């Protein structure tokens, strides 16, 4: 896993496979962002593995010139955990859709997050089942009409980020497929030592076009998004004239207008990326409140899961000393039979 001889460009991380997503699919933008990050961090293609489940998003590994494993529906985090158990040196990315990771695979997502192996985990949330042609997703808003809910969904959706935080994730971020700073978010997730979880709002142009338009619409994005910056007050709006403060009754965050003279600014809460309760409140913001985009929580554990296991094993080996398997078999009650 030596670093490659010359610096690679984003396009060097594209595989030779024809990309088969629908024209206009948000997945293309994410692919580009990932290629940029790989170039930025100087990823060794041979030392990098993309693991995925099943779905449109999960085709991702075919398009990256690294090692790749296109797994089965929902199980990518488990496969990836196995990869890390076997070889902690590999740089492992995990990709899946909202159905893949939050429906059939929610158990694996939750347990992988709480164990915290060193993975970068990207959940492409298009609020629909793309590959199977438009069925209801667990993140789809109530009332959604799809082939499986023609009368409108009567379910409440899951929030990917809230779910991840409750499961014990130590890094949670939210990004948007076409967002300029997606690269920065992905990079932060990758640099986090442990599982870096990123929900990416991704437009499915065929089955759920415009699902995030209310948030992403250029003209009003500044009013409908908030981008927390560590150590800075939580401000948003084109004029940065709005902020978030704690509601006195503990019900979360509420918007206040900042006077032209900065009045009210002292009430605005400062973002601390290691603050779990705050991250949970931020993750919970939904329109008409501004939706939080960026790194919401980043609080590394002292050691990742697979490293902790290795450390135990090394300690055991040290404890055993010279003893090998053959010697171990001779421990405990044994007896000699002589001829």
């Amino acid at each position, binding site marked *: 896993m030596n670093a490659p001889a010359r610096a690679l460009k984003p396009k060097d991380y594209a595989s030779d496979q024809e990309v088969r997503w629908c024209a206009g699919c948000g997945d293309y933008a994410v692919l580009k962002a990932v290629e940029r990050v790989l170039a930025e961090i100087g990823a060794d293609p041979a030392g990098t593995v993309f693991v995925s489940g099943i779905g449109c998003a999960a085709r991702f590994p075919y398009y990256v010139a690294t090692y790749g494993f296109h797994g*089965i529906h929902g199980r990518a985090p488990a496969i990836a955990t196995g990869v*890390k158990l076997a070889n902690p040196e590999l740089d492992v990315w995990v990709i899946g859709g909202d159905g893949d990771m939050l429906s059939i695979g929610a158990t694996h997502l939750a347990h992988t997050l709480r164990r915290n192996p060193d993975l970068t985990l990207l959940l492409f949330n298009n609020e629909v089942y793309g590959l199977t042609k438009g069925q209801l997703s667990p993140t789809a808003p109530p009332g959604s009409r799809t082939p499986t809910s023609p009368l409108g969904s009567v379910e409440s959706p899951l929030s990917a980020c809230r779910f991840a935080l409750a499961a014990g994730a130590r890094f949670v971020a939210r990004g948007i497929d076409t967002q300029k700073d997606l690269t920065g978010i992905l990079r932060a997730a990758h640099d986090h030592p442990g599982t870096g979880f990123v929900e990416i709002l991704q437009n499915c142009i065929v089955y759920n076009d415009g699902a995030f338009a209310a948030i992403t619409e250029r003209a009003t994005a500044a009013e409908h998004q908030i981008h927390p910056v560590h150590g800075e007050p939580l401000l948003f709006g084109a004029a940065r004239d709005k902020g978030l403060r704690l509601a006195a009754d503990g019900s979360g965050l509420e918007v206040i207008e900042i006077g032209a003279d900065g009045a009210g600014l002292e009430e605005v809460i400062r973002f601390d990326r290691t603050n779990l309760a705050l991250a949970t409140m931020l993750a919970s913001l939904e329109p008409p409140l501004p939706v939080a985009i960026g790194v919401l929580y980043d609080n590394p554990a002292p050691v990742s899961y697979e490293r902790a296991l290795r450390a135990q094993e090394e300690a055991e080996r040290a404890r055993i000393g010279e003893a090998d398997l053959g010697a171990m078999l001779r421990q405990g009650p044994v007896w*000699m039979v002589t001829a």
Partner: protein
Amino acid sequence: MAVVDKVEGETGEEAGLRQPLETAVVRFAGDSGDGVQLTGSLFTLSTALAHHDLATFPDFPAEIRAPAGTTYGVSAFQIHFGGREIRTIGDRPDVLVALNPAALKVNLGDLRPGTVVILDVGSFTERNLRKAGFTEDPREDGSLDPFRVVALDISGLTRRAVADTGLTSREQLRCKNFFALGLVFWMFDRELGPVIEWTRQKFGRKPALCEANIAALKAGHALGETAELPQLPAFQVPPASIAPGLYRAVTGSEALAFGLLDGARKAGLQLTFCSYPITPASPLLHVLARLRGYGVTTFQAEDEIAAVCAAIGASYAGALGVTSSSGPGISLKSEAIGLAVMTELPLVIVNTQRAGPSTGMPTKTEQSDLLQALYGRNGDAPIVVLAAASPADCFTMAREAVRIAVGHMTPVMLLSDGFLANAAEPWKIPDLDTLPAFPVRFRTDPEGFAPYARDERLVRPWVRPGTPGLQHRIGGLEKQHETGEVSYDPENHQRMTDLRWNKVLAVAEDIPEQTLEQGDPGDRVCVVGWGSTYGPISRAVTTRRRRGEKVAHLHLRHLWPLPRNLGRLLSGFEKILVPEMNKGQLVHLLRSQYLVPAMGLSKVSGRPFAVAELEQALDRLSEERP
């Protein structure tokens, strides 16, 4: 099992002589809290030191700690030992030690006239009798008349023996298993020394308890020695002629763990063992979890699906991925095993079969997952299927599973069962360094590399991610021949389906030809077994052959692909009998493969075959002779 005949009517140490016995079956039974399993282990140790061959089987209650005194709370331990090769745990006990009424109740059905029944009558209170489901005291209603009952107040005797050890009354009572053990030691003329030593090692940290146990042991032994109990026989069992060497006892779970570890080492791989607790598969995980200093990473996953997927991921990354489960858990792995078939990665799946279907009887044994092993996946998804025949054979077959998985880039399912997992037998500790190695050679050369190119045995290369220049992608979609790219091409799918099929069939070239355990190809009847029926079949066939019957024993360890000479071998027999602890699964396979009129013998009771049942089936076959 001609043991009881010989002792019938004799009393212990008449004229100072011990009654000779070729083999004996002793069953200890009592409440879950009575320390029966410990008693059994100590008796086993002593038996081994007396140079007998032996086989043991613990029989745990299904409940964790059922209310004291209930029949479903009874814990038992059976040992069969003697002066010849021991192949079964024994059909029925020659000596039953029942530490409470419930233990007597559940075992009554297994006794034969003349069985020595040692009762702790101290526990035969009215309450306990009722709890055990006796409406009348069995000592009084004549139901014990056929047996040689040794009724002792073991509870009381124990209390007295340990009165001075400073234990509470309750603690005192917990020594009664040692008292019973001492008594049985006397019956079989055992030395107390080694067991006392071992007890001191084990309980050293609780000296009062330790010494009390030893006192109880000695008191029990002394009682045999001194009290003249007419019903209490004293036996003399000859030592067996056992190959010289260093021995230990192993359960199937332990042997399997050791085999996987040695297999991984001999392949030059780190072992990544991924599992989720389930009875009776958990002990394998427990054993390996304690051996993490010996080259194994154990992973308790969130469920069985995650476990098999993590194992696949580990194999993908260049370790030996192994997963293990039983019954319902194996069903859950079906989809992912298909993924391993498609990605052609090595994977060992250990199935410690239990009584099914569904949750079934988790603590009981069965062999009813064979057809699932062969066919329980969507699509044509062939894998290699192996089965271990005895606890010690688990070591050999685990190594074999690893050898085939890494040598042929294929999932291998290794079938064990609840009986094998928990049963123990003496095991001559192998010199691991002399066992054959089968080192994996990972592909590292980018020149001409194609992930689904194959060698002459149709095996694709194994590449460790991290290897420069060999980046490629695999997955569950159909693969283009050689390139491994996704392909929907009709001809390619046909070709790849055939290749996957033939690749597994080609394993037949890499396994030994089938041989007969006993008998000759010209015999009239062939008894074909697989898995843990080995012991009883072997014993039954031996007995019949001694009587001059032309019965052979063929035991399959490789169930798919079948040994290449099997069809030929089978075609020579007039009758083929296939005893299985299921509704007829191997017999189904053999009939279909070879169009031979094999007949099944099915037993699905959660218990191993008794030798007598097999002998009866052979009798019926003989009667059919025209």
